[in-house]
């Protein structure tokens, strides 16, 4: 019998290295009951795919259906703010099940088709160039602060039809929204400031786009309000969701991807032989190797048996992408970073009906960054070996990644 697995997922060593901890769970207890946070941890690739594809058994309406308190714990005086957060989050389309989820997703889906997103590649390329030009003058940069954080906001602000002069304000709001995935005791204050700020900022834009629709994303959501699919609050919350979902995730793809190359000089050397040709498979391997999203939660809609365990109705169920993407039953030599890996059917974007709506956009951004870094800064190297991660169970997010360019 294996030694019992410690049950705190937020300890500094698990935050620094989630792979050892979740790897042990995957091997010894793949459907594991975590007593401390009262949740099931599902860690095998096959189980994760099964769980996400059987959406009837596992509700995505987590904020609506989970009566338990926030975790990690928050300041007691912030419980009112937490209620606000729950009501705000509950209106996100991703927090719905079918049939509402399908109806809501269909409003937005055609905006995010692979072909539509591919059309954004020239804009992404220019934005990457602008940010790298600024870094080149200094000879150094913090990949997190100077590239990964601003790039997705530049893209999304453009999609929202936000004028350049207001991008700074949107970026400030976006950075407050990032607190949703963090573990700080007092995270509710900045988070709710970001949420309220988004509502104040976006609401007049929706009014304007209802009268004068354009080809921007807010107009798409406003059309959903016109059709009766969305309430106004849902339009506002889902605009904010786009900003957040496209931000935190892409940040991590860029930073974790860059770090993987800094730590694997052989793969960096290989990439430099053909940045244009390898950027695509390299991005997929970055998504698999150090996935931007570590885990996502569902709520069981009925009693479900998995690997001999009975998950009871209303139980919290968390599935761990970071572990599934390193499952040796799904990926040969899973701990190797191999940018030519094929096939590479990772689950970094989830699977099933909730598969990431912005997957193609994330891929385009990842590919353009990786290609540009390899072409422009062949001698890129880390300034320090000390790495610190955000104390989040959801996101695999570095605090900073300072590099020298030459």
């Amino acid at each position: 019998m294996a030694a019992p697995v410690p049950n705190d997922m937020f300890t500094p060593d698990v935050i620094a290295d989630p792979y050892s901890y979740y790897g042990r769970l995957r091997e010894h207890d793949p459907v594991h009951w975590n007593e401390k946070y009262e949740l099931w941890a599902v860690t095998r690739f096959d189980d994760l795919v099964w769980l996400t594809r059987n959406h009837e058994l596992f509700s995505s309406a987590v904020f609506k259906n989970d009566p338990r308190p926030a975790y990690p714990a928050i300041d007691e005086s912030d419980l009112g703010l937490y209620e606000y957060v729950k009501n705000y989050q509950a209106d996100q389309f991703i927090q719905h099940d079918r049939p509402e989820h399908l109806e809501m997703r269909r409003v937005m889906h055609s905006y995010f088709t692979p072909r539509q997103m591919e059309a954004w590649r020239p804009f992404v390329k220019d934005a990457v160039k602008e940010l790298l030009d600024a870094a080149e003058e200094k000879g150094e940069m913090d990949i997190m602060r100077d590239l990964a954080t601003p790039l997705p906001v530049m893209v999304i602000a453009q999609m929202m039809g936000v004028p350049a002069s207001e991008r700074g304000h949107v970026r400030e709001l976006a950075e407050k929204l990032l607190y949703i995935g963090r573990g700080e005791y007092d995270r509710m204050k900045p988070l709710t400031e970001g949420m309220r700020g988004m509502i104040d900022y976006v609401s007049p834009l929706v009014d304007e786009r209802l009268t004068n629709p354009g080809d921007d994303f807010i107009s798409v959501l406003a059309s959903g309000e016109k059709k009766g699919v969305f309430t106004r609050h849902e339009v506002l919350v889902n605009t904010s969701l786009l900003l957040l979902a496209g931000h935190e995730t892409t940040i991590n793809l860029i930073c974790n991807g860059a770090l993987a190359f800094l730590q694997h000089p052989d793969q960096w050397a290989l990439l430099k032989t053909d940045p244009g040709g390898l950027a695509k498979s390299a991005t997929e391997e970055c998504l698999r190797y150090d996935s931007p999203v570590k885990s996502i939660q569902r709520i069981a809609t009925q009693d479900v048996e998995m690997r001999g365990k009975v998950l009871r109705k209303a139980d919290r169920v968390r599935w761990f992408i970071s572990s599934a993407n390193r499952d040796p039953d799904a990926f040969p030599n899973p701990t190797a970073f191999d940018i030519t890996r094929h096939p590479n059917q990772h689950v970094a974007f989830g699977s099933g009906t909730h598969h990431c709506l912005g997957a193609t956009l994330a891929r385009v951004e990842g590919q353009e960054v990786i290609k540009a870094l390899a072409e422009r800064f062949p001698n890129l190297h880390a300034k320090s070996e000390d790495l610190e991660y955000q104390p989040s169970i959801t996101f695999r997010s570095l605090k900073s990644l300072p590099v020298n360019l030459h």
Partner: protein
Amino acid sequence: MARKLRVWVDQQLCVGNAMCEAIASHTFRLNEKRQSEAVDPEGDIEENILEAAENCPVSAIFVEDAETGERLFP
């Protein structure tokens, strides 16, 4: 007469997003693995089948003119 189509879903790519089934419900059906299969290339009008292919988030759907072999999507 509508032209005959050849429609297939690459099972290596399909993630079971099921948007195709929502758009062209007679042509696409989820199998027991919850992945989409093209069960009837004449189940829906061509416009809907092409819309389903266009909307696949992982570009797993392929559509050809069955007689000429002309690729209609992607």
